[in-house]
């Protein structure tokens, strides 16, 4: 509750603006990364026209999206249609409020930080459903149904994997989780075989489930362009589409941030000696490592089918995550006492 106690009139707006700026810049960087990394993997050049190596291409695309007409087709449920992008965007926006940037520095260090992130991301499902339904387009509806089913299902293994970390750290505060992993990369949860080997399994499960949560290949069924045209955002254009786009890339980064905080030490440096590099750089460096990993996977793997998606979730990830949770708990009890 600390953030309410300080001078919220000052800190609230500043934090909001900074987060908005981070999300926007992140979208520009991630889109550029996605284009260049995929081009590099596919023997192409990618965007080359605007600026050196085409670095301004995404900026120009963003301007284009903002200037484009906001088309609202006939038969659309207007209030819901207009509201949906804001809900999706707002949810991904709010997740960043608990990012631990450095020791003791985070926009809001909630005691229930991890839980807060999980709770807030459930808004996305409702927003997706709102968008898909109100579009009055069957492809959108399919996308929405898939998206919601997927988000709800993969939240289970995701939460279970996160729980393992919470158990190990003894706190749901992201700051505490970070502090716990100090002292070099061998103490990071995702690599610390000596601390609790089952955390490594949780790391893997978390990463796979987070791919599904942020709708990335091979789990990008809600927007599977070769099947559902564009999924739930088929009917969107202009600024509203840009919001979905921003939210998607913000979610990618948020998944990366959460992964690095929970499993790779967050703002902790690689080695204690590298302390002089500021924490946010470490954090975002690790987060972008995960973003690039997501892009890499997208360019490598085909997409799963709906039934296979559910199979992977309920028959592979959930039992796996449960096993990691139980074994990790036992380890905690027995070995560490």
């Amino acid at each position, binding site marked *: 509750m600390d953030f309410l106690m300080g001078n919220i009139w000052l800190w609230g707006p500043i934090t909001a603006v900074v987060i908005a700026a981070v999300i926007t810049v992140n979208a520009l960087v991630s889109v550029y990364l996605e284009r260049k990394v995929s081009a590099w993997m596919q023997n192409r050049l990618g965007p080359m026209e605007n600026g050196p190596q085409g670095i301004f291409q995404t900026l120009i695309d963003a301007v284009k999206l903002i200037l484009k007409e906001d088309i609202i087709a006939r038969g659309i449920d207007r209030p819901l249609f207009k509201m949906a992008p804001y809900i999706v965007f707002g949810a991904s926006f709010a997740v960043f409020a608990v990012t631990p940037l450095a020791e003791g520095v985070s926009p809001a260090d909630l005691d229930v930080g991890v839980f807060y992130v999980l709770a807030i991301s459930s*808004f996305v499902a409702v927003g997706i459903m709102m968008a898909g339904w109100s579009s*009055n387009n069957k492809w959108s509806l399919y996308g929405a149904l898939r998206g*919601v089913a997927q988000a709800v299902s993969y939240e289970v293994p995701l939460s279970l994997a996160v729980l393992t970390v919470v158990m190990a750290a003894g706190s749901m505060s992201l700051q505490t989780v970070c502090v716990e992993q100090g002292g070099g990369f061998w103490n990071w949860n995702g690599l610390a075989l000596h601390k609790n080997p089952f955390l490594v399994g949780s790391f893997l499960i978390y990463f796979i489930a987070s791919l599904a949560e942020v709708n990335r290949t091979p789990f990008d069924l809600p927007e599977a362009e070769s099947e559902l045209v564009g999924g739930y955002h088929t009917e969107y254009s202009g600024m509203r589409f840009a919001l979905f786009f921003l939210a998607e890339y913000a979610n990618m980064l948020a998944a990366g941030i959460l992964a690095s905080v929970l499993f790779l030490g967050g703002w902790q440096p690689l080695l204690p000696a590298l302390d002089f590099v500021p924490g946010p750089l470490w954090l975002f460096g690790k987060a972008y490592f995960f973003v690039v990993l997501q892009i890499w996977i997208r360019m490598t793997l085909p997409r799963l089918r709906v039934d296979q998606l559910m199979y992977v979730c309920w028959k592979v990830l959930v039992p796996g995550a449960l096993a990691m949770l139980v074994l990790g708990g036992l380890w905690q009890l027995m070995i560490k006492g």
Partner: protein
Amino acid sequence: MDIKTLLELMFGLLTVASAIWVAFTPKLLHAGFSLLFTFFGVAGLYVMLGADFLAAVQVLVYIGGILVLLLFGILLTTAMPTAELTVGGTRRGQGLALGMLLLGLLLLAVFRAGWPLSMNALPETTASDIGKGFMTTWLLPFEVASILLLGAMLGALHLARRAGEDQ
């Protein structure tokens, strides 16, 4: 104005306004999505009451679970997205009269009763207290609740299966 009071007012207004929409809108889908704001407003009020863990639970279970379930139910029980989904109200007048009566009674009770007020300092963190409570004082209800959830899950699975899938 105090920031806290302002937020309380805002959340309260959001809760009530969206709940009114839930109760009176003729469109089923709008009622469903309006419920999102009611739940969110209530979660905000929980935060104002110092129950941050409960607020997160509220969002996670009500919005992420129950609301999604309700919306899914709506979508699955209507064949086409274009169909006008009315909630089919009846006895609107009688209901309204009854509601007004009830509201009057409740408000009377709220304001006339002498509540033993005793403001306490907020605990440092509610999550660990609640967790400890579940494992000690309320262990039995906690276990009963988990069995109830398991039973509900199995029951729902059984009910939702198609007739031909019994084998």
